[in-house]
């Protein structure tokens, strides 16, 4: 019976929170605002491509075979930079030969080149194009390079006839990450198609920013809800009708569902904009503009991971916010706790951003397992395709274990804190509440 009663309490508290929240004007306005923002973010790739037409990508060309690099650079320049009749040109690339592949790749990493092309002649007299990029090469540019590579391959083959009687081999074309590509690098060389990679990054950024904002934002909903119950003095009536456990869990669940509803309302128009941007891009930039690539990066797996991390991450942060707010007496005091509470989230945000740009340093790997950070960092690694399934499983498991522990502590603090009035929220007070609760 008591178990049923506990669920009844949680359900009722959650329902009240959900209904009051969703009905409120603030909810409507923040949903509209965030949805608008998400649509803008979703359209950014399209805007970048439109803007990108006016920029010039510097490409280094390296080859061990004497003359091949210069030959390829000249051919690519001729084919890819269309000269206009008026004498001007829509110059999109400059090609420059380099002598050392490693040096060229470092230049790419340093940002001096958008990409470095390493040309290798295969035994079958074909050409192997390896394009090293660190994300500085847009989707459409990568596709243009592939077209150029085909042209170089054909010309090279024609020039070699008839001295070598061999059939034409379509040049191999691969875009590699400049930092990890190459046999000497630690870990497996991950070949990511540039278009795909750019799309993944955009989607990853959108999801990570969304997670970060919403966790902190909805966490503050929980905190302000707790403080409001204290300042309106309804708390005593409430705590005599329901247990601290019902109130804390009910609040987290109710506001969590309200938040999830909002996230879905924010994501839906953004998805539509993403789909639309493919069509718009094709219309403005010609077919195969690559603008729709972002959408393909938003795989069901990634969306599912996002939802799981959102739910678990929210539960974790919401419990913290509920506990912290339970010791406050006035709404103004929320300002005092807002900053320290956002620190764990901010600390997780930075490794997440680094992970999105392809970083895989040890601290990023570690951060992606820490429960308060994994909702951002592991999500980033999943988004850019740099997470093993077991890593994802372990990070989720750690979250699943941490959430109830933190929630129990939060309930202790809450029980001790809700009837405390007039004391400034000091760390000592929280410690006493945890110990004494």
């Amino acid at each position, binding site marked *: 019976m008591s178990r049923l009663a506990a669920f009844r309490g949680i359900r*009722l508290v959650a329902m009240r929170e959900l209904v009051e929240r969703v009905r409120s004007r603030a909810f409507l306005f923040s949903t509209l605002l965030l949805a608008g923002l998400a649509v803008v973010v979703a359209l950014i790739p399209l805007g970048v491509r439109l803007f990108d037409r006016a920029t010039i990508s510097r490409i280094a060309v390296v080859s061990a075979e004497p003359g091949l690099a210069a030959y390829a650079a000249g051919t690519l320049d001729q084919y890819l930079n269309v000269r206009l009749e008026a004498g001007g040109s829509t110059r999109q690339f400059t090609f420059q030969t380099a002598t050392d592949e490693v040096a060229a790749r470092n230049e790419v990493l340093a940002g001096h080149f958008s990409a470095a092309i390493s040309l290798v002649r295969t035994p079958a007299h074909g050409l192997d194009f390896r394009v090293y990029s660190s994300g500085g090469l847009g989707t459409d540019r990568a596709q243009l390079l592939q077209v150029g590579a085909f042209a170089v391959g054909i010309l090279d083959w024609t020039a070699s006839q008839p001295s070598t009687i061999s059939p034409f081999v379509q040049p191999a074309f691969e875009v590699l990450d400049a930092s990890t590509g190459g046999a000497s690098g630690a870990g497996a060389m991950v070949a990511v198609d540039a278009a795909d990679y750019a799309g993944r990054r955009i989607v990853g950024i959108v999801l990570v920013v969304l997670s970060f904002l919403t966790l902190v934002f909805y966490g503050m909903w929980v905190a302000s809800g707790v403080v409001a119950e204290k300042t309106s*003095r309804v708390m005593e009536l409430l705590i005599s009708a329901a247990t601290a456990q019902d109130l804390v869990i009910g609040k987290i669940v109710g506001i969590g569902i309200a938040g999830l509803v909002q996230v879905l309302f924010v994501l839906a128009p953004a998805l539509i904009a993403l789909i639309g941007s493919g069509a718009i891009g094709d219309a403005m930039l010609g077919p195969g503009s690559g603008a729709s690539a972002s959408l393909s990066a938003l795989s069901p797996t990634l969306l599912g991971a996002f939802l799981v991390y959102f739910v678990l991450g929210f539960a974790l942060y919401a419990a913290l916010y509920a506990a912290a707010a339970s010791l406050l007496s006035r709404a103004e005091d929320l300002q005092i706790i807002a900053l320290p509470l956002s620190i764990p989230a901010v600390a997780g945000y930075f490794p997440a951003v680094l992970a999105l740009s392809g970083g895989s340093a040890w601290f990023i790997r570690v951060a992606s397992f820490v429960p308060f950070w994994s909702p951002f960092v592991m999500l980033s690694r999943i988004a850019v395709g740099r997470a093993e399934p077991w890593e994802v499983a372990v990070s989720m498991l750690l979250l699943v274990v941490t959430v109830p522990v933190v929630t129990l502590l939060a309930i202790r603090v809450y029980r001790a804190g809700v009837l405390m009035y007039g004391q400034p929220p000091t760390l000592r007070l929280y410690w006493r509440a945890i110990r004494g609760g």
Partner: protein
Amino acid sequence: MRPVPALPLCSCRMSLVIDHLSKRFGAVKALDDLTFEVAPGQVFGFLGANGAGKTTTMRIAVGVLEADAGQITWEGRPSTELPRSTWGYLPEERGLYPRMQVLDQLVFFAQLHGVAPDRARREANAWLRRFRAEDLATRKAEQLSKGNQQKIQFIAAVLHEPPVLLMDEPFTGLDPVNVMLLREAFLELRDRGRTVVFSTHQMEVAEALCEAVAIVDRGRMVVGGSIRDVRRSTGRRQVRISVAGDHRLPWLANVPGTRVIQAGMDRTAVELDEGVEPDAVLAAAIAAGARVLHFELADPSLEQVFIDHVGRPADEEVHLAPDAADVEAVA
């Protein structure tokens, strides 16, 4: 200080027992071995000045606070094992959800106590009607006057039909009409078999409404029992006398151990020390040639009993100072 009369704890297991309850907040002793008993089906007054420990006792009963020692039992079961719906609690800290409609709040709180929503709605409407407040049902709490909010909170406390009502200063802040409505509600709930415990520092309210009271001071039991016993607990008696002629009763000076405590045109209340017989007053009046129109024996008012026991009126604020030993222990 006068010896504290021990409360006879009746053996009936059906009652509400405050059993050697102690509670400390840091260096301050809020409750100090507080013990008394409330018979079921009674309206019981829990009397004391602000800071006497009334709110702390009620909070321990409803499970909001934990006692350091002792317990509260209802029908033999300790409060820590009882479901929360045992109690109908009106906290001294009044508060409702400001933006929520009155009826929605009432149904919400009743549901928390396990009442089905339909039934909660029906009962809430019935209570609103009897408090002449049907029009408040769809209003938001923040739009209500303090008195009306208090009525809504009272309804929230009783909707789930709890066997015991714990009302913390329920009459404070109500206008006379609402005081009357609330008193009627108390009596009706008692007639339906509920036990009603309310705290107050207004003695006249307790006198008019309670069958039994407990007077507490600084967390300690001072005196308790039926109103009649408590009023007689000081051992002093009063006579109320009415005479034709000089109302100042100058002849009273001839009777040692008497003093006028309330002079009036109609009746004058005279307090007698222990051992002074009322007959002596009557005899002195006749001897002085006064024409006695009215003469009655009366018990002192609860207010006077309170002052007698506690040493000051109940509406005087108490500041609980930590005693010296406690301060040292903390430092």
